[in-house]
Structures are given as C-alpha cells and as structure tokens.
C-alpha cells in the first residue's frame, strides 16, 4: 500500500530555496556523476524498482531541494544515530544525509540550551506541513518527567512536532515498537510513535539499530516520488523488510540438511553451520541484514558467527532469551511438568481412593434380589 502524501515532487523544500538542490550539494561535496548514478541504481534495486526508474530517481534526487528534517530523540541509546552517521567511509549514502537540512538533532547539533530549542521551533514554523520528522526512542507515558528535553516531556514534544510534519520516520525498534524501554516490566510505560500519532503517515524503520541504507532508501523514495514506499502490516518498507533473515541466510542449506552448531566453539560453529540451536531468531525476523549487510557490506551478525536476535521485530527483548532456540518454551516447562505430575499423582490417588470407597459402599449396601422377591 503506497501512501500518497499529496506532495508535489520537490515541494518539500520549496519554502527554503536558499538551501539549494541535492545535486548541487553533492557536486560541491565532490561526488562524481558516476558515484551518484551508482547510488541511484543501488537504491532502485534495493527498493525493487525497475531499472527504467533509475533516470527518474536520479533526476528527482538531483532537483530535490533539501528537505527540512527535525530529529527527535526520546528514550533511546543514540545507537540509531551512531549507526546512521558513522559510515565507514564517506559514502554517497552519508552525503545524502549531509544534504538534508537537519535543522534539529540534539545529539549532533552544535547549538545548546535555548538556542537549540529555538532552531527546532523556527524550523517547524518555517516548514510547517512540509518537514520530515524523524523520531528515535520510545515515549514514556507513566510519568512525563521520566524523559524530558528542555523541560518539555517527550509526549508533548512529539505531539507538537507531529502536527506540522509531512510524514514521520520512526527509526529504531524503540520508536517503532517501544523497543528495550518497552520490555517487560516496562517501568516507564514506554510506547511507540504509532501508539500516539494516528493522523500522520508513519514509516517504521525498526532495528537495534536499523541498517543505514534503509533510511537513505526511504529518504530517496520520499524525495523521488513524494510518497511513502509500500509498507508491510507493521509499517515497515516492504523493499527492506519483505523477507525473513532465515529465507535469505547463506547458512540456510545447513538448516535444511539438519547441520547445526551446538555451541559457539564446536566443530559445527567452525564449519559455519546453522545457528538455530544457539537461539537464532532469523526464521521469525524480517530485515535486510542478510542481503544488505553491515559496515559497507562486510558481513552481518550470522556471518560473524552470532545468531540473529530478532531486533527488527516487536518485543524482541521479551522473546525468552537470545540464546534460547525458537522452538523451546520461553518459561521453565520442566518445573511445571514436575509440579503438574506431582499434583496429579496426589489428585489421582485421592480420586482412586474415593472411587474405591464408593465401590465398597455400594457393595455393602447392595441387597441381593432373590427369585422370591421378584415373584412378590
């Protein structure tokens, strides 16, 4: 389902023409035409768009005016920002980031105190109805004092910033599904952006942290088409979250053959066999790790010998432990089994005794009927 934002192509930043186009900025940064086209082609293929779309993407991106982006960080660990900004080398993807007008991001901006908040207010006012709102971190509902920025509760700041946003990108599992703060027993009453904002288009980009290229892909799609990419049933772009880790895992043949690593240092682990028995959540996790990979396509957790922890799924922290296989019960079933059996033996014996006494009583009060009785 593609959500049309009713935005004309590029209208996002018509309000701030002084910011220049994306093409101009990239050229200034020394990005060659070749690298730029390569990025467009990669984006098109990642988003499962036909190759014929590449020139359109290039043209749209080239002419797109730098959109104003307001980035709000709530109950989070800054891991998402780290992931998105710390590219290994200066890639076109990171330059796309440089090329947006990041008007407010309290971790990255130089301004502090009132100046910082003023930047946010000005950006919101100037670009009302057109800015992109990026949120990482969950929002506490139990007590507004649990997480505040400049004395403003996360809930108030989100509600206020969402009003004028063209769309919201929830980045990371905390913003998308509550994440770690939401984990049992959820002491702050943490919820996701989608739990609060109901009237704006929201793209969920979950992961702990999410893959940087997913963000740039979503951004490129937004700049090219002025609409959100096709989303799945829990708001994730299908192009990146359409397939499970398990289905795209290079270790899948070992799963099919029944060859598993039993421990982290056994022969199976050394041979690179399937990590299902070590708790891999790949079969129930939808993300692009197995294809896009991390650190400039170097590897992903399973390739490094660690099972997938399912970080792009809701409540991944409460799945019964990262090292417990998916087919294992999350609670201690052995103990339940013992207690249930012990209780049942006691109950069974009681029932047995009662049945016997009933039988004995029946035998005792049984009156024999004789032929004479019947003839009476």
């Amino acid at each position, binding site marked *: 389902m593609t959500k049309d934002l009713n935005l004309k192509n590029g209208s996002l930043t018509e309000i701030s023409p002084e910011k220049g186009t994306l093409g101009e900025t990239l050229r200034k940064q020394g990005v060659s035409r070749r690298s730029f086209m390569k990025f467009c082609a990669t984006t098109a293929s990642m988003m499962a768009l036909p190759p014929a779309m590449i020139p359109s993407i290039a043209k749209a991106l080239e002419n797109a005016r730098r959109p104003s982006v307001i980035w709000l960080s709530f109950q989070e660990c800054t891991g998402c920002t780290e992931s998105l900004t710390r590219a290994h080398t200066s890639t076109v993807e990171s330059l796309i980031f440089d090329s947006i007008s990041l008007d407010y991001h309290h971790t990255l901006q130089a301004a502090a105190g009132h100046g910082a908040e003023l930047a946010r207010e000005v950006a919101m006012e100037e670009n009302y109805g057109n800015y992109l709102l990026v949120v990482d971190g969950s929002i506490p509902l139990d007590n507004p004092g649990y997480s505040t920025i400049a004395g403003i509760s996360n809930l108030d700041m989100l509600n206020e910033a969402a009003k004028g946003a063209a769309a919201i990108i929830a980045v990371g599992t905390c913003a998308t*599904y509550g994440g770690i703060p939401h984990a049992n027993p959820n002491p702050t009453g943490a919820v996701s952006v989608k739990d609060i904002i109901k009237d704006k288009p929201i793209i969920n980009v979950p992961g702990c942290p999410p893959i940087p290229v997913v963000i740039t892909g979503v951004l490129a799609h937004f700049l090219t088409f002025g609409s959100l990419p096709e989303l799945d*049933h*829990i708001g994730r772009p299908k192009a990146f979250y359409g397939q*499970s880790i*398990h*289905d795209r895992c290079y270790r899948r043949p070992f*799963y*099919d*053959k*029944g060859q*598993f690593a039993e421990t982290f240092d056994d022969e199976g682990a050394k041979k690179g066999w399937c990590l*299902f*028995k070590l708790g891999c959540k790949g*079969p*129930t996790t*939808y993300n692009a790790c197995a294809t896009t990979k991390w650190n400039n396509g170097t590897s992903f957790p399973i390739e490094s010998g660690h099972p997938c922890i399912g970080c792009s*799924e*809701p*409540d*991944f922290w*409460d*799945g*019964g432990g990262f090292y*417990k*296989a*998916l*087919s*294992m*019960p*999350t*609670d201690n*079933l*052995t103990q*339940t*089994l013992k207690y*249930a*059996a012990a*209780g*049942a*033996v006691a*109950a*069974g*014996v009681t*029932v*047995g*005794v009662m*049945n*016997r006494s009933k*039988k004995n009583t029946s035998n005792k009060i049984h009156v024999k009927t004789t032929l004479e009785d019947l003839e009476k």
Partner: protein
Amino acid sequence: MTEIELLSWARGPGLQIATIVFVAGVVIRILEILLLGRKANLAEAKGSEMSNGLRTIVTRTIPDKTTFKRSSVTIVSGYVFHIAMFIPLFFFAPHILFFKDVIGVSWPSLPGAVVDAFAVISIIAMIAVLINRLTNRVMRYLTNFEDLLVWLLTFLPLITGYFAFHRIGLTAPSLLAIHLLSVEVLLIVFPFTKLMHTFTLFLARWYNGAISGYRGVAS
C-alpha cells in the same frame, strides 16, 4: 496483540497451561483406571498373567488376517499415518530441541526434506482416514462428534506445521504461533477424548493378554 506477542504467549503461558492440563489429565485418568482394581479371581491360575499380558502388547501390533481383510483401509491408513507422524514429531531438529529443553534428553535429527516427506505422507494418510470414515457406511454410522473433533485437532498441528515449515500464506511468527497453539489445543483436549489411547492402548492390550494368560489359553 501483535504476531510476536502471540508467539511469545504460545511459547510461554499457553504452553504452561496446555502442559498442566495434559499432564494432570493423563496422570489422573491412568491412576483412576489402575486404582479401580479388579475382582479377585477365585479360579486357579493356569498360566502367567504378566508375561502373557506383556507379550500381547507386542503381538497385537500385527493385525490378524480376518481383521485385516475386513478393514484393510482403516488398518493400512492408520499405520501409515501413525508411523509417518512420528518422524516429524520426534526427528525434526526444532522438535528435538523442545524435548531436550523440557526433559533434558536429545537424539540425532533427520534432514528437513526427509521430515517434510513424512509429514506429507501423514497428512495424506489422515485425509484417507477421513474419506474412509465418511464413505464407508458402517464407519459413518459409528462416527460421532468426538471422532471428527479428534481428527481435526490431530490434523491441525500437522497441516499448520507443514505451512510453518514451508512458510506459506502468513508471516513466519504467525505461522509458528498458530502451529504452537494448535498443539496446545490438542494437548488440552487429549486427556478427555479417545486420544488417551496413546497410553491406555498398552493397558488394554496387557489386560486382554493377562485374561488369557490366567486361563492358560492363547491370546
């Protein structure tokens, strides 16, 4: 409730509830049967109850010629179903992990393709059993609601397991959750239906053999 929450519930509280009902139900019912006792047999024993009983548990596995001729479809499809069903149940790696976690014992698994083949065979056999039950006039006459319910509840874990294995139709967490829930429903109704034959079959066969053993005749 999200699909992951449903899966967590199925792996956690759902499984706990199902296990308690299953274990308590089975143990109480078996104890009730055993503790009921039998009337003292005043006749002189002409052979051993125990050895003949134990022998019958094994010998009754093979149907006699007349019975086989009379209900060959039932017997063949029944055997095919039971044997084919045990392969995925006990030799699929994720299932072995489950048993290992609960009872602490594990054994080697079979490759996915082998498990899959046996699952398909058991599904086909179950369908054959149902068709036979519905088309054979005598069988249809004997069929009651419980028979059909038990068939369905046995069929569901197989078919949902097949769908989960091949990831057909829904997302993987939903498929896995549905599979687990179907198993849990089966475990809960187990002690209260004819599914109890899994355990009582041994008692019944032993008893049949024991009666003949006591009388000193062939069973």
